[in-house]
């Protein structure tokens, strides 16, 4: 199952040139860009691990691409995303967030049904990947 997460998630995976062009778009608008990674793909897991600090004062995407590649080599089987934060007054939120790496095998999610009171039914989603401990989830032995 392919995780559809963040901007551009219904497009084919972006190439490095396309990532650079998107990062350039963010930098041109003055949004600092940061790189984050995780191996817990649960949709409600919004706080991923930061790869270094957000990169401020850049004008060209080369530095970001270098950081993405470093992150990819360190965590070849993790999800890696790029965030752009718009600090302007009135917005002050993440302006763009897209995946730049996904694991080769994505096992998908289990929909769990839980009986509540009065025959109500509650649902939860659990990733098959998280059955294994962190760090050993995707292809990691």
């Amino acid at each position: 199952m392919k995780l559809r997460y963040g901007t551009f998630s219904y497009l084919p995976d972006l190439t490095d040139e396309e990532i650079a062009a998107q990062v350039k778009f963010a930098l041109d608008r003055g949004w600092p860009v940061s790189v984050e990674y995780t191996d817990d793909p649960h949709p409600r897991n919004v706080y991923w691990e930061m790869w270094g600090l957000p990169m401020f004062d850049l004008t060209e995407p080369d530095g970001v691409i270098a950081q993405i590649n470093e992150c990819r080599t360190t965590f070849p089987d993790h999800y890696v995303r790029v965030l752009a934060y718009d600090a302007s007054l009135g917005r002050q939120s993440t302006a763009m967030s897209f995946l730049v790496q996904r694991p080769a095998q994505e096992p998908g999610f289990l929909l769990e049904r839980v009986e509540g009171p009065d025959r109500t039914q509650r649902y939860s989603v659990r990733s098959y990947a998280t059955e294994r401990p962190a760090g050993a989830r995707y292809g990691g032995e």
Partner: protein
Amino acid sequence: MSTSQGFGFPRPSATDPAAASSAADGEQTTAEPVTLADDAELDLSADEAAARVEGTLASLDAELVGLASVKRRVREIASLLQVDRAREQFGLSSSKPTLHMSFTGGPGTGKTTVAMRMATILHALGYIRAPRVHVVTRDDLVGQFIGHTAPKTKEALARAAGGVLFIDEAYYLFRPENERDYGQEVIEILLTEMENERGDLVVIFAGYPDRMATFFAANPGLSSRVPHHIEFEDYDHAELVRIADLMVAAENFRFDEAARATFSEYLTRRMERPNFSNARSVRNAIERCRLRQARRLVGLRRPLRKEDLVTITDEDIRGSSLFADEAEGE
């Protein structure tokens, strides 16, 4: 950002997404390269980039006094890139020229100014992506503890990406007397970055001639990767006077006749003093003249005309400490 048109499913773009994105980010869109026939003729001056470069070179000639050898070298580099573009149009491929440079010269000889112009020219010819100069010194590159230097240097490189990295007083990077100095690490990182074929970063090392010579002698690997060594000569007296005229005119002031002669005499005296730093000293001298002029005008206690406000008189220059001994003797 365009305003949202409401929710909707994105439609697949009719055009190729790669082409659309490169057009959107404002970079030069390279049209389908057409290889010219072998017997075709190409007018170099018809190239639109050439016109922009010519403009920059002309302003370099007009606004910078002297520096004949520097101007010649800048012109050569511009021509090389221009010819390379022409060769490309004929389908003749050649390796991308390395343009890392070293600028050596005394203080105030215009190294930084020329670096800015160089960035404009390289950008006009499409060698770098933005006409931007990122000026750094040792403090911006060297870290304070083990493991701090590499991230710091990489950050500086990331900021300079696509433009010019100008390393001022580059010889401070290398401290032979301290073998555990982190400067060596910076040089190694710079070397790998400069070797990078795909990168379009241009590194300029700048500094005083004698110390730069020792610096390059101690780092032969670095020296061999910097093909362009450009020397900035000290200005002579006549050139300094012309620089002063240009500076005064740029600030909307002017010297009166007596003042010009006095300023010329001032320069003669100033050049003999230690720590004379060429154009920078001239600028400082003019700044001080403005101060004295302002004090004189306020002391006049009469309505001022425009003429008063723009004129720097003999008296304003005579107030300098260089003329102090003479005043005492009188």
